[in-house]
């Protein structure tokens, strides 16, 4: 084994991992608590959130295994919530809003379960917030489900069906934006950012669980997207080791394993998963060595564009008024 090769195998130091996300405080309760959800009391251990209470009541069993009657008055999608492997809660989608007696409207996924808390899933403001936020998620999602490999096993599709969404009030991505090309450059994992709901599960799986430091959150506003910490434009040029954890945790068809990316598409001649948005990034055809390329590549913000995130963001803010005419 050459020394070059060894250098290529050095895993990233954790302190160099820069996922681009904020350092959130812990969200669970300090102590065990009894919480009432839509009239049903549920006992929860320390470290619980209000969503744990809601889910316990929804599933008819409390977190400690005891039986609870009733169920919740309304469905709480909690789209971006994962609840396993210490991933999340990101609390980004806000489709878990519930009303509490003490704190008003709160996101159940990231609100500690305080003892004695009284939660209503059917309060008017909570229903409105969940419905509007679900439609807002749909407004920025590639809804071409028939050519999606996650058709039938998609959290967003499930939530839309459970909430009887017939026609999202803000329309769908088709109405509004050009599609971003599908990144089909990796041999193992495909990215369709048009289906990404920015739940951050993949970024946490990649950085906090696998400690690979490949994926990150980047950009701001409508340009917020999943990108690569080495500044690469495609998966192929990233430092991905193809562990597949990101695809496992993805709630939609945004990150899928190659080979089953069209597993559940509906067969319509001429329409395939790969041509569903028109353009695709393919492999560049260069032969690859046995090891993951650029494992120890320079991890700097300047890698891709030559400017730092700060410079980019400042320029974007300054340009906002000049960039577009009104109306």
């Amino acid at each position, binding site marked *: 084994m050459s020394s070059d090769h060894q250098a290529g195998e050095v895993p990233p130091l954790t302190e160099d991992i*820069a996922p*681009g*996300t*904020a*350092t*959130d*405080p*812990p*969200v669970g309760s300090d102590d065990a608590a009894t919480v009432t959800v839509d009239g049903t009391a549920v006992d929860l251990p320390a470290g619980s959130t209000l969503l744990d209470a809601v889910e316990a009541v929804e599933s008819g069993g409390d977190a400690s295994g005891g039986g609870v009657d009733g169920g919740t008055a309304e469905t709480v999608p909690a789209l971006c919530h994962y609840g396993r492997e210490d991933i999340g809660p990101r*609390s*980004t*989608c*806000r*489709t878990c*809003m519930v009303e509490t007696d003490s*704190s008003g*409207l709160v*996101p159940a996924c*990231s*609100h*500690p379960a305080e003892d004695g808390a009284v939660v209503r899933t059917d309060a008017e*403001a909570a229903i*409105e*917030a969940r419905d*509007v*936020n679900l439609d*807002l*998620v749909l*407004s*920025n999602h590639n809804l071409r489900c028939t050519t999606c490999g996650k058709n039938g096993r998609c959290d967003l599709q499930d939530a839309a069906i459970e909430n009887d969404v017939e026609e999202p*009030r*803000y329309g769908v991505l088709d109405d*509004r934006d050009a599609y971003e090309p599908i990144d089909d450059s990796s041999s193992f994992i495909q990215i369709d950012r048009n289906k990404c709901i*920015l739940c951050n599960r993949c970024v946490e799986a990649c950085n906090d669980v696998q400690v690979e430091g490949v994926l*990150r*959150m*980047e*950009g*701001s*506003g*409508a*340009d*917020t997207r999943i990108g690569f910490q080495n500044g690469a434009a495609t998966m192929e040029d990233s430092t991905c080791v193809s562990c597949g954890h990101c695809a496992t945790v993805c709630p939609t068809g945004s990150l899928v394993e190659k080979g089953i990316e069209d597993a559940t598409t509906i067969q319509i001649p001429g329409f395939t998963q790969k041509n569903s948005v028109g353009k695709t990034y393919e492999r560049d055809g260069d032969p690859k060595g046995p090891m993951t390329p650029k494992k120890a590549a320079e991890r700097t*913000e300047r890698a891709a564009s030559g400017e*730092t*995130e*700060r410079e980019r*963001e*400042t320029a*974007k*803010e*300054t340009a*906002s*008024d*000049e*960039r*577009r005419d*009104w*109306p």
Partner: protein
Amino acid sequence: MDDSSLADRQRVVRVPADRPDLAEAAEGEVDGGGADGSDAGGRSTHGGDADLTVARVGPVGLDGLDPLVTATRGGETAVYANAGPDLVSEIVTDLAEGTVGVVGEPLAVAGHALGPATFPPAPGTPLDVGNRHLLGGAGWHRPADPEDHAAAGGFVDAGLEAVVTAADGLRGRGWGDWCHDVDLAPTLDRAREAFGEAAVVVNAHGTAADPGARSGADEGSRRPGTDEGSRRSGTDAFLLESVPFAVLEGADLLATAVDADRVVVYVSEADETAVERARAAAENYPDPVTPFEVVTGPAVHRATEPTMALEAIEGNHRLEARLRRPGELPTLNGTPALVHTARTVAHLADRVQAADGDGPGHPGTRLVTVTRDVEAPATVELSETATLDAALDAVSLAGEFKAAAVGGQFGGLTDALDVDADPDALGEAGLGTEGVVEIIGEGRCLVEFVGRRAQRAADTNCGRCVPCREGTTQLTELLRDIYDGDYDEDGIAELLRVMNGSSVCAFGVEAARPTRTAMTTFGGEFEAHAEGRCPAGACFEAPEVTQ
């Protein structure tokens, strides 16, 4: 730095520290003088007129008077607005000859006791608008010189109890404050419970309004101004430029109270003067509890939000809001942190000083910056019992008053400013408490105004939460739809409620305000646009007339 305060000097000419040409003109008139190379200090002259001092002082806050030069001799001060080098030379000669206010046309000649430690009252001028408790040293003190602040009663030797008493009932100023509009006392208690493991963050990041806002010159223009020179930093950065010791003292008092091991002053990298003066003042501060660190953040609006400020100080390359744990302090590198704006801590210091002097205590005041369609912006200090329109006496409107946006970038729109400057009254009126009043002149379209604000919010939010990221995008689209005849009033109101009620941080919550208040107060303009008319005559092309 001088080792004595200006109050001890016989004759003093004060010129703005950012106008070296004026200081040089003054010094050139003094025999035997020579520059000492200090930008922000003062200089006693030697050899010639030993009693004449040229002092480089911070801004007074009234841009229309800039450059403001004062000449003090004994019990009299002549105040000159818009002074040039020639006039400054004459002023110095005037003083050297034993007279004051004889040359030129002084704005006012104020009588006062010998050696005033703060700007003497100048009745009948914009300087006389409101109070000057926090702003007493503005335009009067040398920003890097602690002696001037000490002469004005600063650097009180106050213990924990005095700070706790002063914090009780003091409400955080501005959206950059963790305690925005709420009492400081509970967070102070929590930080004290951290037993010496606490940090104090002074948040002086912030803009007075959106960078497009400018004064006067663009009246009637549809495009927002981008003139670099007319942009204004926020009120917190202004305090650092003008009276940095008042801010640092407040931070030091908090640090004393919670036994902090770290005090950070956080400023936008665009506010270079504020950064420079904060660093100089931090260097010269007498015996701080712990040395001050001055840290810069990116010049973007969202970087003012307290959790994003903490992310910036920690060095994250990308800023997004953090979640907040109910009832707990945020952390800076794992340490519980008090995050207050420069205004808040300066008010705290002011309250401690007032109590120390056995005086009646200052009534609550608020700093208010008036900008946009005015000849020149102004920052004044109003009593909380005064109405906002009192601040208008400090500015000249550029054109007729149509409306005002009260509360900064995401302020609320109103057609009247007869509302008290205190947060309860402003909240009831649906307005923001940021301390910024943007005057919107006749001829501006309010649908365009709030549309641009929505667009900015969509372009510059952190991207974390759906109600803000996607909500501002859809809000912009819904406002554009009005121009196509589709004014979905209920749909917009619904979206605004959800943005307001479910966003992660104040950015999304407040981004709903301009449109909400405009629809309430100026609903007719929205309806007119849906019918193809713009009451301000700004939005639609004139129809072509064919014979």
